[in-house]
């Protein structure tokens, strides 16, 4: 019988509190959009935060409120995005894949050096200590700050002393862009194949002395494709990659220093992109 008293006591207490809560729930209930719960079921529910929200429910709320796109869930991928779009009756826009590009071709063989740098093995410290060991103030220092910053193993320093981006691994997170003390890495759309691989803004005569691959600002490319390329501070800039007609691409090969290049054998893909865009 002894055991009955605590059992009954706890039971009665629990009952009292639960009745109180039920009443409070009835009084204080908040009507919520039922879509949010449905979306939450579709989402993977791992609450990873890759979409920029604190969890799957917050993301679902964001989608319903129209504050965000349904294609940001990297865990669920396109499949989840499609399901969400079907539920809400909206179109999914696939995001344009982007990739990091290192805008320098000043390899050990092609660029001129001030001297030998024997300090800490980091671009940042080389930049502070002596302004970099290359004569070109815009060129890649090649100590691999970007490689160390990359969380996806998408970069390595090639034999020529310049970082190489492995396109398949690169998710365009921008960590390397931040890490580079000279800001010569840019996040560019994958389809952009015409790239000026130089950031040198020196006058042509000086730039030519510093590096064999420097952009000397001669203007051959900007005259060949005025709709897509312009000249600014002695440097050619591809300002509209979608506006490069196919017939002007061969003319880019006339670049005297090969600073501007059409990468890969991609001329056809560029023109298809153009038609699509």
């Amino acid at each position: 019988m002894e055991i009955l008293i605590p059992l009954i006591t706890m039971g009665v207490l629990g009952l009292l509190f639960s009745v109180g809560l039920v009443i409070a729930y009835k009084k204080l209930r908040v009507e919520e959009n039922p879509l949010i719960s449905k979306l939450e079921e579709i989402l993977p529910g791992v609450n990873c935060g890759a979409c920029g929200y604190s969890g799957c429910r917050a993301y679902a709320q964001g989608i319903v409120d129209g504050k965000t796109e349904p294609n940001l869930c990297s865990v669920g991928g396109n499949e989840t995005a499609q399901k969400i779009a079907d539920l809400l009756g909206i179109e999914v826009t696939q995001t344009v894949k982007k990739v990091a590009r290192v805008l320098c071709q000043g390899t050990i063989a092609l660029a001129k050096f001030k001297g030998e740098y024997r300090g800490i093995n980091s671009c940042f410290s080389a930049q502070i200590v002596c302004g970099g060991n290359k004569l070109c103030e815009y060129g890649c220092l090649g100590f691999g700050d970007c490689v160390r910053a990359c969380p996806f193993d998408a970069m390595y320093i090639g034999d020529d002393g310049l970082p190489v981006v492995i396109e398949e691994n690169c998710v365009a997170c921008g960590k390397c862009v931040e890490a580079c003390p000279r800001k010569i890495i840019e996040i560019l759309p994958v389809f952009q194949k015409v790239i000026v691989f130089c950031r040198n803004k020196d006058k042509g005569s000086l730039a030519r002395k510093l590096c064999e691959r420097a952009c000397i600002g001669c203007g051959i490319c900007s005259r060949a494709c005025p709709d897509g390329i312009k000249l600014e501070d002695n440097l050619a800039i591809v300002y509209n990659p979608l506006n490069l007609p196919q017939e002007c691409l061969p003319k880019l090969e006339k670049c005297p220093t090969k600073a501007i290049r059409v990468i890969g054998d991609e001329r056809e893909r560029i023109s298809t992109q153009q038609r699509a865009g």
Partner: protein
Amino acid sequence: MELVAIFISAILINNFVLHYFLGICPFLGVSKRIDSAFSMGLAVTFVMTITAIVSWIINHWVLIPYNLDYLQIVSFILVIASLVQLVEMFIRKTSPPLYQALGIYLPLITTNCAILGLALLAALKNYSFIETIIFGLGSGIGFTLAIVLMAGIREQLDMADVPEVLKGPGIALITAGIMALGFLGFTGMLK
């Protein structure tokens, strides 16, 4: 006079966060901005005061008469869980932005050791009903004080030049430690 002593002691000398080291989870989690820290402090204060009252009633009217002191923890947890649910529903209804700002830390008040600690300490010290209310209120205000001070410091820290390794939780814990040392200075206030 006794009541004032309990009140001051709960706020400054026996501060729950900085003396007993209870309730560290919200103390570090919600102390990034002053306004949400203050709201969290108010929610905790409310829950603490009500918990103190209800747990005193249960302790003195139910547990002690039936010699069921050993059920204190279980029944206090029951009280706290129900009250937090109630507060959560109430905040969700009245202030959705605050509900968003408190986030997961609101339901976590349930498992906040500061609340259970309060109920158990009040029972342990054999406080009268009025004393218990004052103790609960003071403890809540003490928690609010600690978390708002912390949030103020952390807002400043955002702009300070903190060494890379200490950024985030590291510097927050060091700050909390120094604050605890500072509050140790109040110990001599009451004999």
